[in-house]
């Protein structure tokens, strides 16, 4: 395997959690709900996935635990913002703070344990394709899931009736309500999907990216995923492009350090965050473009009239 392939492999590993968390949040936002708690759900997923794996010895049970914990945790957000119409921005922050706290507490006795890495699933024949084979067909389950999820979400949003309903809820909840669509239930499901994806992204961190548990191990990736959704202007496939771009940026610092480029490591570590800001600027300075793409009811509370 050449150096180029090795680099691409690490980029894919770094990009997968971003893609996963972002595709979930995309669906949530398409239904008109802004859940800023991605970071909290992600870190919960990472902790629960790691703990379940250590307890059972099976990383696949770990994956399930990650997904379930993310979805359950997002229900808290759903209850507050959808049933009790609390402020979505503040509740999302609360979810992040709580997630960092709870995961730190339950994961404390697991710090420093070496985990079990999720095994690769090798596709016969396909994996022998030069260059592409090892990159795309000698990966772990979560990578395959990430690609399948993006394709599935694209199909769901733009090719299915339920997806059309979900988008209508996100663009005008009163009209959707008048048409007989259950706005609150749709949003609950969308929030839970977002939570499940963020939990899966967390599981990738503690089972694939670095198979261990460390406090705050999501390190801002949940926030970067939120920025990715804006970058992708709420379109599924652009999440992949953006995610891999960010993955490349965050990996480039490691290589820059390895090759001894004389820049202090802190500046290189700041690159993904700075890149996020730059990308946000580029994408949002065109006010009209942003308005066209943003779900019109994003962040607005809905109280059904009786």
């Amino acid at each position, binding site marked *: 395997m050449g150096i180029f392939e090795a680099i691409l492999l690490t980029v894919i590993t770094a990009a997968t959690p971003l893609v996963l968390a972002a595709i979930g949040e995309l669906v949530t936002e398409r239904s008109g709900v802004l859940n800023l708690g991605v970071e909290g759900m992600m870190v919960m997923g990472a902790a629960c996935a790691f703990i379940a794996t250590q307890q059972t010895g099976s990383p696949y049970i770990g994956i399930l635990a990650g997904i379930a914990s993310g979805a359950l945790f997002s229900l808290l957000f759903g209850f507050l913002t959808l049933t009790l119409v609390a402020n979505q921005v503040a509740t999302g922050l609360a979810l992040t703070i709580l997630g960092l706290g709870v995961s730190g507490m339950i994961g404390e006795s697991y710090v420093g344990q070496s985990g079990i890495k999720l095994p690769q699933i090798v596709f016969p024949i396909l994996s022998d394709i030069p260059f592409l084979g090892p990159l795309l067909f000698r990966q772990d389950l979560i990578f395959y899931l990430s690609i399948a999820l993006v394709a599935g979400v694209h199909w769901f949003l733009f090719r299915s009736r339920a997806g059309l309903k979900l988008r209508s809820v996100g663009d005008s909840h009163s009209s959707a309500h008048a048409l007989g669509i259950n706005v609150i239930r749709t949003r609950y499901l969308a929030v839970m999907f977002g939570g499940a994806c963020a939990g899966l992204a967390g599981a990738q961190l503690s089972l694939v990216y670095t198979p261990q548990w460390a406090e705050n191990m999501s390190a801002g990736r949940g926030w970067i995923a939120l920025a990715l959704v804006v970058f992708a202007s709420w379109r599924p496939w652009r999440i992949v492009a953006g995610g891999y771009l960010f993955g490349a940026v965050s990996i480039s610092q490691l290589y820059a350090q390895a090759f001894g480029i004389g820049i202090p490591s802190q500046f290189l570590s700041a690159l993904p965050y700075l890149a996020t800001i730059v990308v946000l600027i580029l994408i*949002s300075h065109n006010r009209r473009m942003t308005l066209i793409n943003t779900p019109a009811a994003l962040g607005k509370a809905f109280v059904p009239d009786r």
Partner: protein
Amino acid sequence: MRIELEKRPDVSKLFSLLSPFIALGLTLVFGGIMFMLLGKDPLSALYSFFIEPLTETWSLHELAIKAAPLILIAVGLSVCYRSNNWNIGAEGQFIMGAIAGSILPVVFYEWQSPLVLPLMMLLGMMGGALFAAIPAFLKAHLNTNEILTSLMLVYVAQLFLDWLVRGPWRNPGGMNFPETRTFDATAILPEMIASGRAHWGFGFAILAAILIWFMMRYTLKGFEITVLGQSERAGRFAGFSSRKMIWFSMLLSGALAGLAGIAEVSGAIQQLRPVISPGYGFTAIIVAFLGRLNPLGIVVAGLVLALTYLGGEAVQVSLQISDKPIRVFQGLLLFFVLSCDTLIHYKIRMMWFDLTDTTADGVR
């Protein structure tokens, strides 16, 4: 079962007052359950978490030290949030304020004069404000989401501080520890009263709370903040500019966070280290909401959250558990505060049995 909300004709005065207390009560109950799950006696745990720190003079001073940055930052954030500007990067502004204010005692350490301290405070405010100016400019002129940009800058500030204290600002006589030289006596914020450690940061916090309270209540600016926050359109008709408001609120909250940063470093730590804040900038968000975005309420809320830091340290010693429950407490508290706020605007009806006709969309 289903829960239905019915809008109150008026904001409930009773619940605006009660909701923070209900939230606190619920947090205590859940905190007790949490301690029980950890295998500790909940009552004695809660006692050493919330009461014991209040029983001694020195710990009251510690309370004031921890409350000072929380109140200073949260007062600024309340102006931001009331005007619908979501600055969540106060942690970064806190750090940059601390760095900017430390230029004098670290780089120009030979200059010793009574002017040093006031200049440090001023530089700290400028540092925080300048750092907040980045998301302000991006939002006001390039339409960039301030939530994400201000948060990303927190990581940048943390890394910048890390680089400074390990690199150019490292104490030359400090055995290679990642810290700056300790501040000269002229650069240390003095104690407020002789009985203990609490420094003037707490005085700044109270002063800021009173000033902002006065501004919000009695001045046109305060009215402008409220109007633009509730309806940007209405504000435009009144001739208020939301662009100017972005600048005003972000710079103000940045300056206060910066002041909190330099006051903490100069008063409590007395040098720069890789980590100078146990998440004050994020905890202050909870303080702002627990205080119902009212500066005077924020003073009380700041003391409460400062107590969770102290209590967390106390139970570490007395119960041999980690400091992790602090964050859980704080997160729970914000959750309960936000859910109790619903009571102010809505009546909540629990429908245990569905007697009304379920229309097409059935159970919610």
